């Protein structure tokens, strides 16, 4: 194996976040989009995937209000936790900003509800969370 063939998927993902872009990998065989990006398609097993910039549009199917231990990320409060599905079909568990104990029921009654990706600064790197659509 040539070293040049070994693409840095993880580093590229974080480098692109610095530029404001959220990237996934699309399978060249079945079109499945992996987010967060990995290099083999989990749906069909194809070895070939390619970079795709994600729209950031998403929905969430479940909702848990942050409370107790799940309030771990104090600087990002208020947030909830949920199963997020991106417009491109990828699924990921994520923080959903803007969820409070007061408005949770309203969103719970209209699941799946809309949300959108948001790039946030952590200690020395950027990451992705989501924010409810108002």
């Amino acid at each position, binding site marked *: 194996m040539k070293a040049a063939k070994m693409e840095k998927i*993880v580093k590229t*993902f974080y480098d692109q976040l610095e530029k404001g872009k959220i990237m996934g990998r699309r399978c060249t065989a079945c079109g*499945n989009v992996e987010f*967060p990006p990995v290099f083999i398609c*989990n*749906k069909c097993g194809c070895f070939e995937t390619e970079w795709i910039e994600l729209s950031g549009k998403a929905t969430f*199917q*479940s*909702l*848990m*209000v*942050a*409370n*107790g*231990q*799940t309030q*771990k*990320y104090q600087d*990002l409060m208020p947030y909830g*936790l*949920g*199963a997020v599905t991106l417009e491109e*079909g990828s*699924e*990921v*568990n*994520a*923080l959903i900003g803007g969820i409070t104990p007061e408005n949770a029921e309203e969103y*719970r009654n209209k*699941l799946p509800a809309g949300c959108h990706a948001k790039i946030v600064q*952590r200690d020395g*790197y950027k*990451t*992705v*969370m989501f924010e409810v659509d108002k």
Partner: protein
Amino acid sequence: MNTVVNQTKLHPYSRSVSIIGVGCTPFMNTVDDPETEGLTEGELFGYATMEAMQDAGVSPKDVDFYFHGQAAPMGSDYITPNIMAANWVGMKGKGSIHHSEACCTGYLALEQAVNAVASGKYNVVLSGCVEFGDAIAIPYKPACFRRKMPMNEFLETTRWIYDKAYTLGMMAGPVINFDDSAEYYARTYGLSVDEMDTVICHMALNNRYNAVHHSLAIVKEDFPEIAKKAGYENIMDYMKSDRENPKMGEYLRLLGTEIKCDGAAAVIVCPTEMASQFTDQKPIEVLGIGSACLESSNHNLEIHATREAVRQVYELTGVTPEEIDLMYINDFMIPSQLVAAEIAGYLPEGEGWKYISEGRTRFDGDRPINTNGGRTSFGHAHAASGLADLYEAVHQMRGDCGERQVKKLPKTVMLRGFGGSQNVTAAIIRTKEA
């Protein structure tokens, strides 16, 4: 839910394998009691395996190979603890493998032992797990010197079970598991947050009731007594008090989570046809073990992985849910009991919460679950817990549990392993009639 879960078809073992011996130490916080303070991992592993060997009627000379499980290295300050363990069990020079799958270690301890015998390579295999989940080793000091590990320090080490490429950074994975299965259940079957809270508290009550009847459990006092001492007449007022039983998430409360502790457990397996050479007790055949892993960024991972593991083992064995007489479920977050029992068909889908609320899943109920008290009340010596469940299952199947014997002698038992963010197994074992 269209989460990608790759599937596997299991094939029959090359030869039938049975459990012929089990052992388990008390689950305890060794440093809290002068009687147990200073016990070492070699000694706990030794006591559990010695009991298993005596139970099986085998000597260390009969054992061809052994597996050793430990979830986290702080307990022993070893990454190859199997090597040291040989000294304590009369097996110097025997081959062995150490494995570590966090809270699923003890369930996969059975999987590996069975595979080793089923392959034909070995006849008698020992599999033991030991964990110091509370009293951790002090580097460079002899093994009897230990210190208590505070909960916060333990929670820090759980980072070792989460994906570092993305999941830790995206933050949801390490915390969503507190509530994920409870939220799934409440949403799917139309329970309010408060109703689900009540069901979760009932699970904790049932586990505690089972544990106080078990001499090896870490807890000795039942919740109604504790509540009374704290001034509560109504047990649910105590269980749902944010002061006495604080919320860990939106649904889960403290008493629905594990009590981490120290302990060890072990099992001996051999070809079913050889069992009578060692013991007069009926062998307990391992019919099959399903396996599925899903990392913590995946939606409802416990639901998906349990479905797949259960699907595999039912397909392989042809066993139907109606044939399962007793179930053990790794429940360090107690909603696992409910979702896993329903996925296995042990409790009716969407109705399991009623069974739990009516106490029907206690050892004296008609659908017993975790007759030892589970992780929230038997205690959670992380690696060892799976084999502690197996120990309890075997004794229930032999009918020798005395006052806490389940009503109908169980013939077929399922054990649902879970752990390490998350490795899921579903094993079916059955008493082999002569």
